[in-house]
């Protein structure tokens, strides 16, 4: 049987990957993917804990997180398309109109 610590370790690695991806990648699509990895790290944790604690709540939360991640991707891609029409770019560094 796989110990709980293995799941938590993988999840931590996934989460860190996601955070680093958001912070250093310059393309919005990749940033969005990195956020999805963060959410999936949370899902892995929730399902693993749910199994080891013998409580259903974690799996229910994971289902909601998946649904909300889908909604996020839909809204996010819509906004990216609008921005792309105006700017012909998906690069974070070119979003520099608003600053003081």
């Amino acid at each position, binding site marked *: 049987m796989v110990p709980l610590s293995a799941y938590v370790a993988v999840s931590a690695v996934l989460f860190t990957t996601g955070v680093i991806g958001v912070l250093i990648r310059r393309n919005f699509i990749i940033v969005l993917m990195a*956020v999805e990895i963060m*959410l999936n790290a949370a899902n892995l*944790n929730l399902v693993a*804990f749910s199994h080891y604690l013998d409580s259903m709540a974690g799996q229910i*939360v994971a289902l909601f997180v998946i649904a909300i991640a889908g909604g996020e991707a839909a809204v*996010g891609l819509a*906004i990216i398309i609008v921005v792309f029409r105006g700017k012909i770019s998906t690069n974070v560094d070119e979003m520099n109109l608003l600053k003081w």
Partner: protein
Amino acid sequence: MTFTLTLSGADLLLLLPEMLLTVWLCVVLTMDFAMPRLPKDRLAYLSVAGLAGVLANLVWFDLAGIGGTLFAHMFVVDRLAVFFKIFIVGTTILVILASVDYVRRFRFFKGEYYFLVLMSALGMMFMASANDLLSVFITLEFSTFGFYVLVAYLRDDVASNEAGLKFFILGVFAAGLLAYGISLVYGETGKLVFSDIASPSATPGLVIGFLLIFAALGFKIGAVPFHSWIPDTYHGAPTPVTAFLSIAPKGAAFAILIRMFFVSLAAFKPAWVLLLVGASILSMTYGNIVAIAQRNIKRLLAYSGIAQIGNILIGLAAGTKMGGDAILFYLLTYLFANLGAFAIVIAVGNLIRSDEIEDYNGLNRRSPFLAFAMLVFLLSLAGVPPLAGFIGKLYIFLAAIDEGLYTLIAVGLINIVISMYYYLVVVKKMYINEPTDPSPLTISPPMKVVVYAGLAGTLFLGIYPQPAINWVVAATLMFSNLAGPAAAAPTLVLPIGG
């Protein structure tokens, strides 16, 4: 394993305000596409009528003391939740009235705008009732999705698109932090409801989990160091959306923060006080100092908003029932003053198509009413007696004095002086500088209603605060066990007015 869900009529009653609003926003959306010739202003008044019904329902809940929990304690109705719902619905009504003129500028989707505003308001009403970590996550995302679209609503405006994208990226990043934090807290305790996750020992998973959840809520309220989206988003978004975004989600997020810190984490108070003191000092100082350099009134109000959030965090740092009262009262004063100031910005922006502070030169010559109202709102934000902001700041500081947070109060007082400077610069431009274009400005009736409501609230809360104080004290009665050592007097009787 089977799940049973039993709901009685009395249980459904607790959901009545939300159900009313859900039905109403469906009506508004249906009317929008079923009657394409209907002037879109009518939809605004229709939305306001529905919200007024919800407000009446909530006032009845508050007076009758109706309360309880639903769905295995996920959803709670108590006086705290009802207070925040009234706060949110009231804000939404004023924002919709302030939007009427602005929405005429949109080329597309004028009706959907009102639908999205109502949708976000519904999400925030659920936030005020969120009582476990799952409902925190769902409701927070629910309300934010509407805002993502609203911020990027001006499709042809590159600034609005950029603001929407920045808000979106940081918003979903915060959602990722929140989800991971929830998973860690769940792993340590096996529970989700706020009162069940009050663990006696601080294990590493619990500490990291709560820090991540706090970071996500910090993004929502825009406390330093999680503020980076605030100035750009406020600047680029349509101004009524900025006004909405600067008030209602802050209130809803504070409802969650109060429940989390006062219920789940009451045992670890010495640890989190330092965290909140740090966030408060950073927010106040950073917001006020950077506000001085601003040339755009929306950015100025954005940074002033960060500083105001710092002030509210003082009440949270106090961690007593009185601190909770002070947060609620401060939010009320912030609602009237900040919404009023944004209403002026919307009105002036509609007329002269500019948000630069330079263009407020000689506003008094062009419209004495707008200039006077702006003066009142800015002075209230700065905390000048006898306006609402003064009582709000006094209340917050008194709560902090009871807990001996003297450093925090000293920093807060210094910050009032700094904030006075940039608010008065705007006042000077309005009253002393000469206008470049002296043509008079006139404002529309719905806008007048908003400005008068802001003025009435700001003056009433400042001159006769006692009814509002009684209300907020009653709303936080469930935290009576958190009374600090010196908080013997349950109510604050103020020397003036009361």
